[in-house]
């Protein structure tokens, strides 16, 4: 009995001791754990808290669409379309998952350029990403959107693509956009750009990049979860689209210019003499701003104002003006015998071998008689011609708001380094030689100045900039100066130009301008390296001019035969359009509601055959 009881006590003691030991060791473990928890929460808590904040909160930019560029009737020359970029990241994914995702993307989205699995998996640090497809349209990306939950590692971002509905038609004007190059890197970073931003690289896109077209990026706070899915929390600043640029260009005229040149090298400049508005400004070769990689036969240079040519006989406007301004009589007659013995061994020819006979200033302008102008030029001298040319805008940049640098001032007089002598003074009288060289734009503006009553305007290409907040910046016509001729003197010149078009002896008569147009013009044929550049510049109607066109076709022979018919066709188109066009204000209101400005855009870019020739 005692033994039994002692045994029970013994057993009981063993139980208590051993359970006690177990409890004690558990308490020891508990102490470790409690200490560790206290260390993590109380000692390192703030650090870990900050880390966890950084884990998921970040600021993300909201891209802003660039502003539009529209023509004078509101038709969109440059637009921003919503597109989607797709990236893949291996962050927190196994190789198999990445492979599965990429296979799925390949299946769902044929447009994607899917990278190799190894390439994705090898990314370090692992949250970096590789582009899978960029600039996808909504239809292309929507299968991915729908299945995004099943595509770990895929990120889809909204972005904007710059599109130019008219393609090559206005490429030189709008310019194009592109990535920030190495050259502009520092500048753009200073202006608050990111390295992967798209900026204007040429034309108006570049010129108005900073102040207007760029728009302002929005900023939002996003929450990023462990699978890198981004959940927007709060928009701090909305993205604001860039301002809309309204140009003075008429797309229809621009197209007419392109079709007329039909793949020949040359330029067409059409301005409104009354205010200097540029209605059409086209040079061939051009390029495709949607894919701004210049292939063979493409050029980003707008030759109409970046290249200077001998103006040829179109410069006789200056010679004649200088003669009249120094008090010379328009009735001075000279006899042309086909050439003029200026000096021993120097007898420049006229444009017809057998000579023009006897004529006054008007007749000489109409016939484009060189001998007459050789003589005048000798009397006027290089200095006066240079001075008059400067008043017409030659020798200086036109001030067109299209580019900051790169417009050619041309060559004028000895100020550009060539000393005047008898020989080049005589040649300057007919727009040849080392003393004069001009851009087609300068020629157009000069004739516009004569036509409008003597005011030289700076060409205006941006008429208005409408900011998204409603503010509007208007560009007013900007007179640069007066040519300083009396009305009678101007009429002498205009009479000469009329005769060139209207009279049977006129150099442009063969083009058969419609008399109802009341056009006045001047041909020019400039020698360059053994070939002739064909010029024609005209304005209409001559008494109340509303359009002035300068056309240059390079290496195309005689101006009256090559360039004048183009000008005639251009004026025909202008008057045809004038009948159908509504006033700009009304038209703009109508087309504003229609996508794409109501014009079927691809038509133009397709019709142009880069090898030349109009297929119509």
């Amino acid at each position, binding site marked *: 009995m005692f033994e039994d009881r002692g045994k029970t006590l013994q*057993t009981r003691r063993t139980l208590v001791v051993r359970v006690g030991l177990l409890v004690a060791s558990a308490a020891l473990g508990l102490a470790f754990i409690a200490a*560790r928890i206290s260390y993590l929460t109380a000692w390192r808590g703030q650090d870990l*808290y900050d880390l966890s904040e950084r884990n998921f909160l970040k600021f993300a930019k909201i891209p802003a669409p660039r502003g539009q560029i529209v023509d004078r009737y509101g038709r969109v020359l440059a637009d921003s379309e919503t597109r989607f970029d797709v990236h893949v990241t291996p962050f927190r994914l196994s190789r198999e998952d990445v492979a599965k995702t990429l296979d799925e993307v390949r299946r769902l989205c044929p447009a994607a350029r899917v990278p190799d699995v190894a390439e994705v998996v090898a990314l370090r640090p692992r949250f970096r990403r590789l582009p899978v497809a960029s600039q996808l349209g909504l239809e292309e990306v929507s299968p991915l959107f729908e299945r995004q939950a099943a595509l770990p590692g895929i990120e889809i971002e909204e972005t904007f693509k710059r599109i130019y509905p008219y393609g090559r038609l206005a490429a030189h004007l709008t310019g194009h956009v592109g990535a920030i190059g190495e050259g502009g890197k520092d500048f753009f970073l200073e202006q608050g750009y990111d390295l992967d931003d798209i900026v204007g690289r040429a034309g108006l896109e570049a010129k108005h990049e900073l102040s207007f077209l760029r728009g302002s990026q929005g900023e939002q706070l996003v929450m990023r979860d462990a699978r890198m899915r981004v959940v927007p929390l709060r928009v701090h600043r909305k993205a604001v689209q860039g301002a809309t640029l309204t140009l003075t260009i008429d797309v229809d005229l621009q197209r007419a210019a392109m079709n007329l040149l039909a793949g020949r090298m040359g330029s067409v400049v059409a301005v409104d003499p009354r205010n200097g508005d540029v209605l059409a400004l086209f040079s061939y070769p051009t390029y495709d701003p949607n894919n701004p990689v210049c292939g063979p036969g493409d050029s980003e240079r707008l030759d109409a104002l970046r290249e200077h040519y001998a103006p040829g006989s179109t410069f006789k406007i200056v010679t004649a003006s200088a003669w009249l301004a120094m008090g010379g009589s328009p009735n001075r007659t000279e006899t042309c015998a086909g050439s003029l013995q200026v000096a021993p061994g120097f007898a420049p020819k006229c444009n017809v071998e057998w000579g023009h006979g006897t004529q006054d200033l008007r007749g000489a302008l109409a016939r484009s008689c060189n001998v007459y102008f050789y003589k005048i030029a000798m009397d006027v001298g290089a200095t006066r011609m240079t001075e008059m040319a400067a008043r017409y805008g030659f020798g200086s940049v036109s001030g067109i708001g299209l580019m900051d640098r790169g417009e050619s001032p041309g060559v004028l007089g000895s100020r550009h380094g060539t000393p005047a002598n008898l020989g080049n003074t005589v040649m300057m009288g007919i727009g040849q030689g080392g003393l004069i060289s001009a851009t087609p734009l300068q020629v157009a503006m000069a004739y516009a100045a004569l036509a409008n009553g003597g005011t030289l305007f700076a060409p205006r290409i941006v008429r208005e900039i409408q900011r998204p907040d409603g503010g509007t910046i208007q560009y007013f016509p900007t007179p640069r100066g007066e040519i300083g001729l009396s009305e009678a003197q101007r009429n002498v010149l205009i009479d000469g130009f009329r005769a060139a078009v209207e009279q049977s002896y006129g150099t442009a008569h063969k083009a058969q301008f419609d008399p109802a147009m009341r056009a006045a013009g001047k041909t020019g044929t400039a020698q360059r390296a053994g070939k002739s550049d064909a010029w024609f510049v005209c304005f209409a109607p001559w008494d109340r001019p509303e359009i002035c066109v300068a056309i240059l076709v390079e290496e195309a022979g005689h101006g009256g035969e090559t360039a004048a018919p183009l000008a005639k066709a251009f004026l025909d188109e202008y008057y045809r359009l004038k009948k159908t066009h509504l006033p700009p204000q009304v038209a703009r209101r109508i087309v504003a509601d229609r996508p794409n400005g109501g014009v079927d855009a691809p038509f133009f870019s397709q019709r142009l055959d880069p090898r030349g020739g109009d297929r119509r």
Partner: protein
Amino acid sequence: MREHPTGLGLHARQFDYFLAMFVLFATGFGILVLAGSTRDVPELAKILPQQARWWGIAIGVFCLTLAVPYRWLKIPGWIVYGMLVVSLAALVFASHLGMAWISTVRAGGASSWYKIALGSSSIRFQPSEFAKIGVVIVLAHWLSLRRESIAEARGWRKPILECIVPLAVAALPMAIVFLQPDFGTASVFLPLPFIVLFVAGLPWRVVLTTVAFGTALALGGFVYLMNADHVPGLKPYQLNRIRVFLEPLGKPFNPPGVEEILYGPAQPEVAETSAKSRDPDDWQIRQAEMALGSGRLFGKGWGQGTQSRLRFLPAHHTDFIFSSLGEQFGLAGCLALLLLYVLIVWRCVHVALVASDAFGQYLVVGLLSIFILHVFLNIGMSVRLLPTTGLPLPLFSFGGSFLVTNYVIFGLIANVGMRREPKER
């Protein structure tokens, strides 16, 4: 020895209401944390009602467990044990046959690491959870029969022979679970026979020798696993996982910075050799630690846990729920839960000491050991004291069969407690 009174009134009087209350508190606290971490997360919207439903079922099972006198479980325990071992084996067999609908468990798993993590969540029926209870019942029964011979065993041969049956009883399911492979559950099985043997009065010299031997084995195994190129019987990823587990023990602890978290370890040569395999584990455990620590003293507030709700915290509703608790309620919340656990253990130890027979004592000690081991392994993993084992936190984690298992455990303990011999007056 007279018969125990079995009247309902006596049982109701001896029922440990405090124990039941603490258990209910813990589960309610867990549901609160779950509600906070799944708030406004659509993918996890069904978790809360599911857990509430399971709680109801668990309470019902608890009451059923109380109704059956625990002494009746001795023989059925063996039968159930046998059935569980068979079904565990069938499970492994099925998984090896590729019958994924049975064996693969993982909601929202992303890497191969998850594919093998069986036994921690949404499987319909987890034999391994109930197998733990079965093992304890069988051990308790066997050792209550062998108690005297164990306590009086002299020499070396007899006590070691006494150990063979209990060790085999635990080793059988453990081996099967290890093959699943579920290291966490296996590591719960391992100590059970030792603990119950210890309480049953295994002589001290055997205990101490075992401890010494086990320590040497663990050290040797550690060195071997960390250095061997290939370990027979282990697939490379298993070996890698073990190494990831053990690595923190082998190197000084460095607080991680953001760079380290995102870019991986600073030393390139380490990154080259093991970054690939260790990437997910390391990332997750650091996120878990960050979640817990970022709660600071009083937490970010209920439902404000960014780590858990944005899914930085892996398995935040099951294995890493303690980190989620820390994130939402801070040090205060963690200590509150630990206190609750201490109170539960206190009540259970009391039951173990007042139980009227050896079977009851060993049963309570064994069941309590399951509970405590789970708590330690889970919290130790969450705070990066122990390797990641993928064990849920008892009474707290989401998971139906685990919750029911826990209520069965405490039901049995309360059962033992209320059927104790009343004090002599």
